[in-house]
């Protein structure tokens, strides 16, 4: 785990806590960066590595929960909240908005490290997903216009004959286009092609009436 590239961000206004947490996370062999306020965290340059944000709720410039709401729209690492006196409404709110955990001070290292590991795993998965999708998009961009027309017809389940009639080309020509599409998108089977189209959010424009319903 420690071999992977990663980063743990800690935001707490109390320097003693910041210091102690950095020490604790570092003692577990992880890379850690600490900030004294939400503003400092937002302003900092962050590499694209999988990350985790350990966020104190009571911050001098903005409440941690509000910061969570603020960054919810964009891409951000999963959050582990820490607080001096946790209450149930804050906890519910934090978890509902996607926080990994909410820990009340003082907390043991087991709880904290478990939460940080979960968060990093989540972020890693998120990044991998994002990277896979990016590759697919590149491949899709390599398709010719005709091949882009053929793709939705094929994944909609039309027979070659039907798709060819739809485009006004011969069945043989369509089969050639189809083969090119599958090769370019690296889809070994039609089922793979359908999954890829789904990830690319290509709409199903046709359906085989009477046969599928």
């Amino acid at each position, binding site marked *: 785990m420690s071999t992977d590239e990663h980063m743990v961000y800690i935001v707490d206004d109390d320097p003693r806590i910041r210091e102690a947490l950095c020490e604790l996370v570092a003692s577990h062999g992880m890379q850690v960066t600490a900030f004294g306020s939400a503003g400092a965290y937002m302003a900092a340059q962050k590499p694209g590595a999988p990350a985790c944000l350990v966020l104190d709720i009571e911050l001098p410039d903005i409440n941690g929960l509000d910061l969570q709401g603020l960054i919810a729209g964009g891409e951000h690492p999963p959050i582990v909240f820490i607080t001096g006196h946790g209450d149930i409404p804050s906890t519910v709110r934090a978890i509902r908005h996607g926080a990994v955990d909410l820990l009340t001070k003082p907390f043991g*290292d087991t709880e904290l490290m478990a939460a940080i590991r979960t968060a990093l795993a989540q972020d890693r998965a998120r990044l991998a997903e994002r990277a896979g999708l990016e590759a697919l998009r590149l491949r899709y961009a390599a398709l010719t216009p005709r091949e882009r027309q053929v793709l939705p017809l094929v994944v909609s389940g039309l027979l070659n004959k039907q798709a060819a009639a739809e485009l006004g080309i011969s069945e043989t020509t369509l089969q050639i286009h189809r083969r090119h599409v599958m090769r370019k998108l690296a889809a070994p089977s039609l089922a793979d092609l359908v999954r890829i189209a789904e990830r690319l959010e290509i709409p199903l424009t046709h359906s085989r009436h009477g046969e599928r319903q």
Partner: protein
Amino acid sequence: MTAAIPHLRLALAAGICVTGLAVYALTWTPIGLLAPVAGLGLLAGPRGGAMLVAGLGLAALVAALAGLHTGGELVGAPAGHWCIFFVTALCVGLAVMAAGLPPPRSHAGAGGRDPGERPAAALAAARAFRTCVPRGLRHRLSAAEGGDQRAGIRSDPGCPAGTEGEALAPKGNIGAGGSDEPAENPEVVRAARVVEALFGNAWALAPDGRWICPPRFAGTGPGLSPHDLNASLAEGEVAWHKLVHPEEYERVALRWRHSLRTGEPWKDQFRIRRASGSYAWARSTAHPLRDAGGRILGWYGTSVDIDVYRKTMENLLAREREISHLVDMVPGHLCRLAPDGTPLFFNRRMAEFHGLEASEAQIPGLPPLEGFLRSLVHPDDVGPMLQVLSQCMEAGGGFSWRYRLRRADGVYRWVAGRAEPTRDEEGRVLEWFGVCTDIEDQMQAEQALRSSERLHRRIVETLPAMIYCAEPDGRPIYRSRRLSAFLGLTLGEGGDPLTGPERLGATLEEIIHPDDLDEVRARYARSLATGEPYAMRHRLRRHDGTWLWVETRAEAMRDAGGNIAQWYGVCFDIEDLLRGQENLRTAQDSLARAARAASLAELSASIAHEVNQPLAAIVANSHACYRWLTAEPPNLERAKITAGRITRDANSAAEVVSRIRALFSQAGQARERLSLAGVIAEARDVMAGEALRRGVRIVLALEEGLPPVSLDRVQVQQVLVNLMSNGMEAMAGGDAEQVLEVRLTRADGTGLRAEVRDHGPGLASTERIFQPFVSTKDRGMGMGLAICRSIVEAHGGRLWAENACPRGARFIFTLPLDAKATE
């Protein structure tokens, strides 16, 4: 028959004239012209005839003179012819006028009485008139159809005996005073004498209307001899001219001329001139006297004095008019009923009001009384009224009732009706006389008054206050229902002791709380004496014996003279108000307590945060330190750094606690010298509500005469409240007696010793509980006692705990008398 005569004569004269003119036209001789002359003679009256004769004679004379003057010879000349013609015409006219047509009448003036009874009847009537004594006379009337009828005449004098008027004439024989006895009409004079003998005041006239025997009452006056009277004839008037009152003369003359012309008997009533020159009413009658051939020989008659009768009648009529006017104009409805209730008479107002006459106020098929009522009275009133009225009619007593009557337009109006019977000598009811007066306005006013009074009473009774009204001496005369219900006493009841002024004092004792009684009495007496408004808060006994706080206020109402007429008082139940005030105070207390608790909670939270941060850092650092030491190979450098941080953070946590202690000790300037007993009592007040809620009794045992100590009141109170609150919580749910004791005594040394003792389960450790963050309670922060100890120690005292025997805990703190803030 009499009317036919002039017509016949007129027709005859016209016929003659027409015939004569026809002969003249056919023969062309003047003989025919004689006929019109004859006709004129036939038509003309005495005066016209004389003029005709005079005219013809004059014409003949003129013709004769003309003939003599022109020819000297009368016969043969035209003038002679004319003279002969006029003379002939004169002869014809005279002959015709002398013959006339006699009126076909006989004995008309006898009045149809049986001739055999006439003298007796006349005699009786004459006597009656003379003596003024009523006379009854019965005689047969000879009816025109033949066969006699018996008839009765009753003659009554028309005036009281004392009002006899002046007689028309002195007594005496007729003709005695007359100057010339006419020799040509002896029958007429004789007849007049007979009448004079019977009735007096007789007179006679010639057929042409001249006086023969003038009435005696006329003879005595100057210049009124028959000659004088007859002089009127020459003036074209009738002979009565000077005897008749000018107002009636025209009528009299007309009728008299008519009788003279036709021969009909003459009757008239008019005022006759008396001898004295004054006029008196008389009834005059004249009859013609005829010879065997029916020719009128003359007229005789008499004048009966009816002046008194006439005046009496006029008086009577006037009085009757006056009475009926009175009956009609009286502002009320008058009616007369038969004994069975049949209406006999309504006065005009009543008839107009109902639009019904007495005879119409009936309903066919119902008994008269009920029909009468049902046609006039409001249906709702008929039943009871009929009952009462029937009883009255049976018993014959008077009746008085109020009911509604229907007006002609259908509107019902209230009236007050009364009825009384009249009785005959034997006591039988003859008639009922009823009167009713319109009292609609009065009823409406009464109704308005009643509803206004009802409204006021309702206001008084509904107002959420107890209202009373008293005489100037304080004796109550009215109490509203609320007050009566409150006291359980009602005015006027036998058991009410408030009705006598001498017992007023005794009653006050009964209803007013003994503690308030003296003041109430004094103020009440002062207000009664001076008229000052009375206002007082006191306790009043309710009917169930409960004492309730009330506020009584009373004001005097004065009359125009400034004397007190009545006292009006209002009494409010202020129990709720007072209780509300008490509750408000309690609420304020608990609010203050809550504020204290809140500040303590805030303080605790802030302390918690302050302590929590270093604790969290310590925990994290110690974990990191452990990791560095157990790493392979151990990172001693990092572990050393981390261990140093742990020491640092732990110190910082300890600092927080010291800072808190310093916080409570630095408030030296707020200290004042106060009685600790007073502070304890205040704390007890603050906790009273809580104690009540928990069912805990707080017992104070405070030594008296202790000197004041210098203390911060709020902080010491906080200590006390905290200790008492802990004690109560310790006893919660236990089955021991729920008593919290607070003692204050002088300490052994130079100080005071306060002790709070509960009967809870006691303490496991009497020292550990004072450490910060140690709590025996589930939700406790563990700071309360630590702070308390800090406060007490800041005051230079000590706070400790002991377990009591047999159970419970004691928290004791001391405060030095000479307080020096010592850390």
